[in-house]
């Protein structure tokens, strides 16, 4: 596929690995956090972790929207379907995320809840048009990439004056989550999570541009390199980060110039600004309540806001006691540090959210990396 395969060339990847190795200062270690699950997936799937010199460690960040969705929000969606009899439309990724009472959207569906997987917010609108006698709720999750399509759907619903459509808005924001990590005790006070720089989001940055990262590169003195989701993109970004660290610089650089500009997609930003406003606080799985880290629907569109329309309250629900998703999302622990990993918690039967989406740190390691954990033992003949 054009603009995909060229960015997966193995020989070039090995050359880039050698270039990174040649530039490393022998006496130091380099820890970079890849914020996006898309990068986590690419690193695990294409063996980027093996290609990188041992001095370079990649820490998986909280940039998988499915992984950071707290149980309480999924409970709300299930409640809409089971108690209010609404049709709940959602992206496939959210279907298997564990919720309260051993439920998930998928299991609620098996109990008779009308839950439909949709490919796009526009498909949720279609469902509302086709089922005028039913309430249709779009369970909207995702970062800045998925938000503009939801904004368009809300605008369209208002234009058509659709009486039976609403959105349960769980859209979250990338820059505030990165700031939150940099402010966290593990990074700031204890230094247990050393972060020398960030691989910045690919598709999120298409929408918001590279500009929003400038303030924290400056304020926290951490380099950021926006990178595409293909393996060569990630390796080039690591090389650029190593150079910044070596030179003592901390600026925003853009590796993904083929799709990202400093300003981003202005049409998308305008649609989002018209429909959404900042939420004062929002709970993230693993990060707790993060101030101004999410969006809510503006008063002008209140009639399409499922939380207001159905008087939904939010109840935070703690994760399973043994589940380490919270620590893994903050970069404090690795998937293999969790006793549930690969035993009771697998992609087929996930206990925690990091195992649900293929972009989650646990699912990525389970699918592509778990055999690395087993030492190779040669038996003499």
């Amino acid at each position, binding site marked *: *596929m*054009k*603009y*995909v395969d*060229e*960015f997966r*060339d193995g*020989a*070039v*990847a*090995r*050359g*880039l*690995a*050698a*270039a*990174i*190795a*040649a530039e490393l200062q022998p006496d130091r270690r380099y820890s970079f956090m890849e914020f*996006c*699950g*898309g990068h986590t997936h690419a690193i695990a799937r294409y063996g980027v972790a093996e290609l990188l010199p041992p001095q370079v460690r990649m820490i998986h960040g909280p940039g*998988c*929207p*499915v992984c950071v969705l707290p149980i309480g929000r999924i409970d709300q969606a299930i409640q809409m379907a089971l108690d209010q009899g609404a049709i709940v439309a959602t*992206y496939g990724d959210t279907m298997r995320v564990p919720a309260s009472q051993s439920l998930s959207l998928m299991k609620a569906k098996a109990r008779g809840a009308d839950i439909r997987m949709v*490919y*796009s*917010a*526009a*498909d949720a609108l279609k469902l509302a048009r086709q089922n005028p006698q039913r309430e249709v709720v779009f369970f909207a*999750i*995702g*970062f800045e*990439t*998925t938000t*503009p*399509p939801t904004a*368009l759907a809300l605008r369209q619903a208002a234009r058509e004056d659709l009486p039976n459509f609403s959105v349960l808005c769980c859209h979250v924001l990338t820059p505030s989550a990165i700031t939150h990590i940099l402010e966290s005790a593990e990074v700031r006070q204890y230094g247990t999570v050393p972060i020398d720089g960030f691989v910045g989001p*690919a*598709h*999120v940055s*298409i*929408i918001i541009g590279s500009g929003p990262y400038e303030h924290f590169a400056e304020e926290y003195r951490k380099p950021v390199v926006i990178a595409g*989701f293909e393996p*060569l*993109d990630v390796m*080039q970004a690591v*090389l650029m980060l190593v150079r910044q660290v070596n030179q003592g610089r901390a600026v925003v650089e853009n*590796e993904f*110039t*083929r*799709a*990202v500009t400093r300003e981003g*997609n202005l*049409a*998308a930003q305008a*649609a989002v600004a018209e429909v959404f406003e900042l939420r004062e606080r929002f709970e993230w799985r693993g990060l707790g309540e993060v101030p101004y880290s999410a969006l809510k629907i503006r008063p002008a569109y209140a009639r399409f806001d499922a939380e207001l329309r159905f008087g939904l309250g939010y109840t935070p629900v703690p994760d399973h006691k043994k589940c380490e998703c919270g620590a893994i999302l903050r970069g404090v622990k690795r998937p293999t540090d969790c006793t549930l990993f690969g035993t009771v918690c697998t992609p087929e039967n996930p206990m925690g959210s990091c195992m649900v*989406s293929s*972009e989650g740190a646990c699912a990525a390691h389970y699918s592509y990396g778990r055999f690395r954990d087993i030492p190779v033992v040669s038996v003499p003949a």
Partner: protein
Amino acid sequence: MCLALPARVLALLSADEAVVELGGVKKTVSMALTPEATVGDYVIVHVGHAIGLLDALEAERTLALFAEMAAAGDAAAAAAQAQAAAPGGGA
């Protein structure tokens, strides 16, 4: 979740919709977020919407940069190997 792929615009259907092609698969997507895209352009498609354009020139530049970096890396690796293999080298 953040899966988005570059697809080529085959035909504009209306102000807001287009048929795009990706590895032989054709799909109708919303163009509301990329009103400037025209036939032949590559757009990045995510959840049924084109969310941005792909700049072919910049893509070429990035690939050229990779090739340059990789060649420099290979040369450095070869030099290090030669040094290690040379008598008295590699110290």
